[in-house]
């Protein structure tokens, strides 16, 4: 994760992205240059109109200059349009490519990546960071280039017209630049503080709403209101701190321009009185000063924009430069027929390189069609075993074989197509129910989907939903209960028709009656498949061909239910606790 890039490198990367759209970039530059030329010409034309036209009473010159001004206004407007369109388009095109690249990359990252990254953080790569980068091109880069050329051009013209007056006018440039940059740098941490305080206040709200029943039951409404008000007052203070500085900067910038203008009027006026300057030129100076003030004032916010864009680019590269660790090897094994013989051969595994191993010396042989139960406390490594099977992680030592071939030699696509998962937390997508059932096989017909749902005991409740199989799930649709979700997941696995099946705590989040129904659906699902059952509940593993008892990453006992009872070990102890429960009605 330590992919620190230098600022010049990031800037170069952002700029080189731009040249992937050479024509857009070309027209953007042309329109910026022509637009500035037109803007610079206007005060000069007005000056000529006054100095030669009006001063000499020459109507011909007045008309000519007026036409020329009209032309520059037209050119300037057309260029403004082209500039606005092309620079924004560059941003859109670059970010379109970038976000697709990021998504593609996220799809290729293995489970270990998602173990350490948070969903919200990754999502903000695709939303906020992308938006920041778009703003780098327009307005940030555009404004920077424009301001630089405009100020430079104005300076050259003013100095050539009248160098004394030019120097007086140009004193405002470093002042404006200094103020906007200094205030910008000072305001930013204050904004951060107020942002953080905003987060704190909203946290109070979020907790209050989430714990509303508790608040009501303990009669703490007034206390909560007080708490929220206190956080709010604090937020108010922080916001005012930032505002005071921002408002000062906002008022000081026009003050500088105003005083500069006063100086130019004073000096210029004196020169006019002494015949060393004409009034038209004085007006031109006034117009140039107004023209450069606004762009310079924007530099402060623009610098913030650029800083944000660079930070965002860095964050996106951090993601893009993480190498996907798990992919199919060249000439991968792609058998036409999979039998489903699973072998774990002295497997060692740790989530991090050099980290504490969560599995040690695991050896399991599961012949085709057999049922293997994996039991043990939370954290004993049960779930890790099946994740190695589907190669969501790679082993650190030993081998996992399917049909005698190391999973690392299998084609990932083929391997995973032959393994079906039913997990404790069923993740359903905001899509129609039928799409969720057909998730593993998008080409399935409705008949196939219904058949799978029937076998999973889900058909009945789905038929009762308002739109049947077309019912939309998720935020804008229907929420299913835990048991219903579980049956959809079973139907999903059934439709996939995998050779190997993994049931990871498939029934632990449903109540007793629902479990009975699901058990029935599960036995249909398991028929004829190599099955791994991970369970804390007893009933589901009793009939397994073999049960492995895991403790701290190792298999401590193995055998059938009866064998394990005879062994008189940990399995037996737990079994006794349960039977004593049933007899006396208590653990103690």
């Amino acid at each position, binding site marked *: 994760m330590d992919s620190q890039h230098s600022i010049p490198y990031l800037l170069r990367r952002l700029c080189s992205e731009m040249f992937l759209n050479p024509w857009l970039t070309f027209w953007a530059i042309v329109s910026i240059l022509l637009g500035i030329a037109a803007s610079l010409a206007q005060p000069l034309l007005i000056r000529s*109109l006054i100095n030669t036209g*009006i001063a000499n009473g020459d109507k011909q010159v007045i008309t000519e200059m*007026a036409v020329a001004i*009209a032309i520059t*206004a037209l050119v300037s*407007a057309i260029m*403004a*349009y082209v500039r*606005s369109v092309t620079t*924004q*388009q560059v941003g*859109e095109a670059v970010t379109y490519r970038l976000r*697709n690249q990021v*998504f593609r990359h996220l799809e290729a*990252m293995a*489970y270990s990546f998602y173990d350490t990254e948070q*969903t919200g953080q990754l999502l903000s790569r*695709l939303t906020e960071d992308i938006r920041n980068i778009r703003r780098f091109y327009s307005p940030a880069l555009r404004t920077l280039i424009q301001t630089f050329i405009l100020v430079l051009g104005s300076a050259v013209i003013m100095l050539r017209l009248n160098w004394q007056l030019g120097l007086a006018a140009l004193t405002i440039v470093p002042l404006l630049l200094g103020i906007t940059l200094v205030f910008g740098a000072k305001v930013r941490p204050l904004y951060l503080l107020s942002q953080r305080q905003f987060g704190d206040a909203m*946290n109070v*709200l979020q907790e*209050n*709403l989430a*714990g509303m029943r508790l608040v009501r*039951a303990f009669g703490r*409404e007034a206390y909560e209101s007080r708490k929220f*008000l206190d956080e709010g007052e604090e*937020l108010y203070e922080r*916001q005012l701190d930032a*505002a005071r500085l921002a408002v000062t900067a906002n008022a000081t910038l026009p*003050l500088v321009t105003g005083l500069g203008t006063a100086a130019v*009027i*004073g000096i210029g*006026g004196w020169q*006019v*009185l002494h015949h060393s300057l004409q*009034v038209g030129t004085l*007006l031109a100076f006034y117009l140039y000063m107004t023209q450069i003030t606004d762009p310079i004032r924007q530099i402060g916010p623009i610098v913030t924009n650029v800083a944000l864009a660079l930070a965002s680019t860095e964050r996106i590269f951090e993601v893009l430069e993480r190498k996907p660790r798990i992919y199919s090897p060249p000439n991968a094994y792609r058998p036409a027929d999979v039998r489903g013989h699973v072998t774990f051969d002295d497997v060692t595994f740790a989530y991090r390189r050099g980290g504490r191993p969560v599995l040690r010396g695991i050896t399991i042989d599961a012949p085709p069609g057999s049922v293997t139960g994996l*039991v043990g*406390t*939370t954290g004993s490594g049960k779930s890790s075993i099946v994740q190695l099977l*589907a190669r969501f992680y790679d082993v650190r030592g030993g081998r996992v074989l399917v049909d005698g071939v190391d999973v690392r030699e299998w084609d990932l*696509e083929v391997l*995973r197509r032959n393994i079906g998962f039913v997990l404790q937390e069923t*993740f359903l*997508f905001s899509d129609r129910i039928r799409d969720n059932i057909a*998730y593993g096989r*998008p080409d399935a017909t409705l008949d196939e989907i219904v058949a799978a749902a029937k076998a999973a005991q889900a058909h009945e409740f789905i038929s009762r939903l308002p739109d049947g199989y077309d019912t939309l799930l998720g*935020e804008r649709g229907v*929420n299913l209960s835990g048991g219903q979700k579980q049956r959809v997941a079973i139907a999903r696995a059934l439709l*996939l028709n995998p050779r190997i099946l993994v049931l990871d705590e498939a029934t632990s989040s*449903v109540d007793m*009656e629902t479990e009975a129904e699901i058990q029935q659906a599960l036995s249909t699902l398991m028929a004829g498949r190599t099955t791994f059952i991970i369970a804390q509940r007893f009933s589901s*593993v009793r009939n397994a061909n073999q049960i492995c*008892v895991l403790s701290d990453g190792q298999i401590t006992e193995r055998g059938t239910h009866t064998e394990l009872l005879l062994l008189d070990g940990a399995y037996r102890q*737990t079994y006794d*606790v349960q039977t004593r*429960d049933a007899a006396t*009605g208590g*653990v*103690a």
Partner: protein
Amino acid sequence: MSTATRNPAQNPASRAHLSLDDRENDLGRKLNRESALRLLAYIKPYWGQAALALFAIVVQTVGELALPRLLGVAIDAVRDGALGAPGGGRKLAITVIIFIACVLIVFVARWTQGYLTTRVGTRVILDLRCALFDHLQVLGMKTFDRMGVGRLISRVQSDVSVLQDLITSGIIGLFADLLVLGGIIIAMFTLNRELALVCYLVAPLMIAVVIVWRRYAIPVYRAVRAANSRYIGYSAENISGMRVIQAFRREAENYVRYERLSWTVYRESTRSILLNSVLAPSVEIISGLATVIVLLVGGNLVLSQSLTIGALTAFIGYVTRFFQPIRTLSDRYNTIQSASVAAERVFELLDEPIDITDAPDAAILPPIAGNIAFDHVVFGYTDRPVIHDLTLTIPAGATAAFVGATGAGKSSIINLVPRFYDIWDGSLTIDGYDIRNVTLKSLRRQFGIVLQDTFLFSATIADNIRYGRLDATDEEVEAAARAVGVHDFIDRLPERYQTRVGERGSGLSVGQRQLIAFARVFLADPRIVVLDEATSSVDTQTERAIQDALRTVLHGRTSLVIAHRLSTIVEADLIVVIDAGRIIEQGRHADLIARRGAYYRLYQAAQFHDNMVNGA
């Protein structure tokens, strides 16, 4: 909460709610007068500051508009002086001094108005947020069920923030813009009538551009927003479901769908760029046109001696300035648009009626023994009852365990007793007091509650336990922790009772969180305990600790428990088996087992439920 409330599409009444909330997406509405007036009412307490801010804006505008005129005066003075008129230098000096004075006044006025508008705006927003927060404290649980916590948060968080933009940049900005426009119109008119009138000729052109632009812009912006929200929704779902996607190898398929949404965003943004780039250049052309008119007509007026060159200069200054407010119009328009939707949502929530309140003649419930009696109770969330004709008596001090399938109505029953919802029919009494005839405060004070998903606030452990009784001393907090057997654990933490627990009590195990919640109830010492047992599995040691703590907490109190633990059920004084909103069996464990009915069957299934624990 039963499945009935979670499945809004199952009945027509809640569908109506859904469509009501769907209106949120309609962004094309105007800020209606009612919302605007209500917002004004929030500004009223700060009218002094608000008035001063408006006054400062007027001063700022007048000062700013004086500057081009002063430039004109200076130019006339020096031109006349150059042609030999006396006192040119003095006039120039005076004009420059007045110019500087104006610049300074503008500085003060700008600072004042900027600061005061932010101050009032921020304050009003704080007041509005607090009003919403207070209202949420008294709203019935129905609103929470219907809207969901996420949506409520976004009302208080984002919608109110949008209103802040409306006050500081929308309304105030619009006021300032209109003032500048009006000021320039007057300034030009007083300078020279004919030239001013010629200039006004271009104004209708500008208005036409803005009207046409608006008509095309609204649908385009709406399309961009819609494309964006679909894109973000799909991205979010895919990232959080990435493990499932990989398990079902949907990467290629989902990328195609993602790419399509991403392309739609690109296409719609591109269309909006073509449109959003129109306004500024149009303004530039029209303002250029106005400048040319001023120079042509004004130039000839100067030649015919009916206009001074200084006045012409001032005109040029005004014309350039005239079109700036029009340029910002599109931004203001967007701000006001989104603010009007936000205002409506905020006030809609504030208007949400409080459905559960004290009766006008409500008595104060004295300390109770805790006899709870349901008498032919009927209850439902929407139009369909979920509890039918329920009659049940729980004697003081007894533990009643409710068992049954998800959606049977267990949660609904226990939620009725602290009056989180009102019953439809029948009566619900505690020690003979109808709970609707006593004050909510005196009723709920006698309750303790433990939720299934143990809730801890981001505060210290001591604060979390003390939530049960705010005035408890440190010794009492510790005694409560000892009583439920969590003291030893807390004592081993680096900062003991002052250890901060994070959001949702992260950093603690499920079992530890439950024990802290028990300590909280124990400290509050309520007469009635409502408990929704957690289903999550914990190891044997913790399980025993929890069972012990449970006995301590429930001892001597009337308790209503949604039980998942076999031990809790078996030890209960009264087991109530619920099915489809009705009691199908009730009695003690031994009796119900002997009856070999529904409970017996459930119990047999449940025997296999307890944790399979290795090395216990």
